[in-house]
């Protein structure tokens, strides 16, 4: 469903990713771990389509309507409408833009794209409340401007709420666990687990193993110096937690 092939990426003149290969099927959970500066967040941003990153080689193949498409040719919003979602490491504050207005606009873009009828504010409110309920979120999340004056944990929960509303086929969660206390982590992880199913896939990008106790991956990949240097099952994460990254070559 989703395949990264020999991906090389530069920021300015600096090469960050030097040939990433990764294949993800529906229903799978993949984790990418790696030390600081290994290129984890770059990978997430390139998948989402951030304009500051230059892809010098390779492609990202994604299945849209049973056709394989290189998403590097698509604008960020086109990727998003096709079901590619990224939860930000640092969710952006947008003053003056009400969260529920924003979410409805995003949701209706997908409706439009799929040729479905757009949802009116009343129906959307009901839809949104159901999603909020299972993420244990209260009204303040949607009555306030997007992420403004949210705590770190609230911002991350808001990302998962957006994931729930947009119902993506592949979700890239970029350090969703960073800055979370243990309770917030549980809520976020429970949310992700509830959203997980046979049709969708999740790519977790994390620095720490602890998130993987809550969201259990099928595969763990170690990213170092812009390359995936090892891919194994979930046990690899524990090993890294114990020994660090240096023993891997």
């Amino acid at each position: 469903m989703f395949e990264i092939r020999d991906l090389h990426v530069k920021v300015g003149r600096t090469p960050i990713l030097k040939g990433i290969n990764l294949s993800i099927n529906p229903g799978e959970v993949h984790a990418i771990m790696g030390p600081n500066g290994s290129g984890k967040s770059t990978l997430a941003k390139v998948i989402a389509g951030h304009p500051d990153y230059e892809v010098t080689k390779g492609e990202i193949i994604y299945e849209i309507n049973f056709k394989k498409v290189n998403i590097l040719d698509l604008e960020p919003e086109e990727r998003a409408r096709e079901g590619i979602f990224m939860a930000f490491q640092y969710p952006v504050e947008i003053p003056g833009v009400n969260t529920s207005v924003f979410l409805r606009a995003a949701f209706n873009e997908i409706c439009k794209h799929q040729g479905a009828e757009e949802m009116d504010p009343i129906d959307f409110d009901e839809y949104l409340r159901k999603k909020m309920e299972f993420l244990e979120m209260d009204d303040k999340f949607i009555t306030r401007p997007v992420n403004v004056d949210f705590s770190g944990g609230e911002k991350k929960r808001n990302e998962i709420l957006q994931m729930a509303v947009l119902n993506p086929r592949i979700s890239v969660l970029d350090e969703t666990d960073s800055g979370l206390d243990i309770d917030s982590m549980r809520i976020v992880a429970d949310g992700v687990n509830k959203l997980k199913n046979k049709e969708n896939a999740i790519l977790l990008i994390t620095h720490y193993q602890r998130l993987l106790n809550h969201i259990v991956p099928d595969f763990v990949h170690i990213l170092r110096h812009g390359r995936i240097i090892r891919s194994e099952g979930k046990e690899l994460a524990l090993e890294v937690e114990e020994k660090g990254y240096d023993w891997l070559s």
Partner: protein
Amino acid sequence: MIRDLEKITKSLSNEESPSWFSDLRAQGFSRFNELGIPTVKDEEWKYTSLLALAKHAFDIAKAGQCAEAEALKNYRSDKDINIVFINGLLSEEFSDFNNIPIGITVSTIRDAMISNAPQIREQLTKYAISDDTAFIALNQAVHDASIYVQIDEKASCNKLIHIIHVTSPGHKNLAVMPRTLIAAGRSSETTILESHIAFSDTFTYFTNALTDIFLSENATLHYCKSQKESLKAFHIGHTRVWQDRDSNFDGFSFMAGSKLTRNDLDITLNGEGANTTLNALYSVYNDQHVDNHTSVDHRVPNCTSNQLYKGILNNRARAVFNGKVFVQPIAQKTSSYQLNKNLLLGTDCRIDTKPQLEIFADDVKCTHGATIGQLAKDEMFYLQTRCIPKKAATRMLAHGFVNDLFSTIKNTAIREKLDRLMEPSFEALQ
């Protein structure tokens, strides 16, 4: 610039008006002739050239008919108390003179001079015409669309009083000179919206508006001036506010129309404990030019003034902000805040902004500043990753830029009207 100005000034000073009133017109006429139209050599007009205005010859309106009656009916609401001028002439048909609540008097200045001469005279002669106010002199000479709103002591009105100045095509190169006097009595509270509007963008005319507001002790006035003139029109407007002790002026200016706008707002804080708020939004695109000047004069101690002027500029639009705050030597414990924020969306737009403070007292709290920025790239990317395309994201962020400002307008009827008036400039965003 105005055809037959002298003749018109004289004909307006007929036998019915008191001699002091005719003298005011004559004085305005001669002062305007002396001063002439300001040029960019004048410091107050440095960034706003009036050459395009000066080359036209305008006629003072003589008949008022609205060609877009439906649009006018849509803009006015039956829930409000409407006072409507069409091309400078009072329209009985669209106004609600039979519906004025107890405690509020609305009449033409001409009628008010008969019933309330001493007060009107005092108010019309409160300010001397200084050197930089040629357009005030011009208005004084030939104002026609003149209305007087008096709010009695302790009166309060839940309904919005909406004074609408609509200009409609039909006559070529009209000049309209609205003159509004608002006197809010002790401990009264009212909300007034003054709209300068056209329902067509394709005809040239000139509005030269003057509004004077007097707030007695402890009076509160929520006042909004909204301007959405034709995109070929010239709008020059001056609002002066005189505040007595403990009074509260809650002001908002909205400027979205006309080819060239100059909007002056002068506040005189003349009684201790007075508060004043001057918020504004200007939103311009293509070749529009909007110039806002404010002046807040803290003459006594313990007053506060808060101003936030926000602008959105697109395409080749230009804007000017000049805000002066004076704190006189005795005005200790003054608290004053002034900020001008600009969002530049076009590649060729330009803002000249100049917040100014002149403080002659030593125990005061005053801040001022200006910002000029573009849409934040990270906000744009965030919205795009949430399926929202660039154009819609731009609009959403521009709305976000004004939302906190609009939320300071407590009256929902005003907010709804401004939202509608603002829509065309948002539609133009790419």
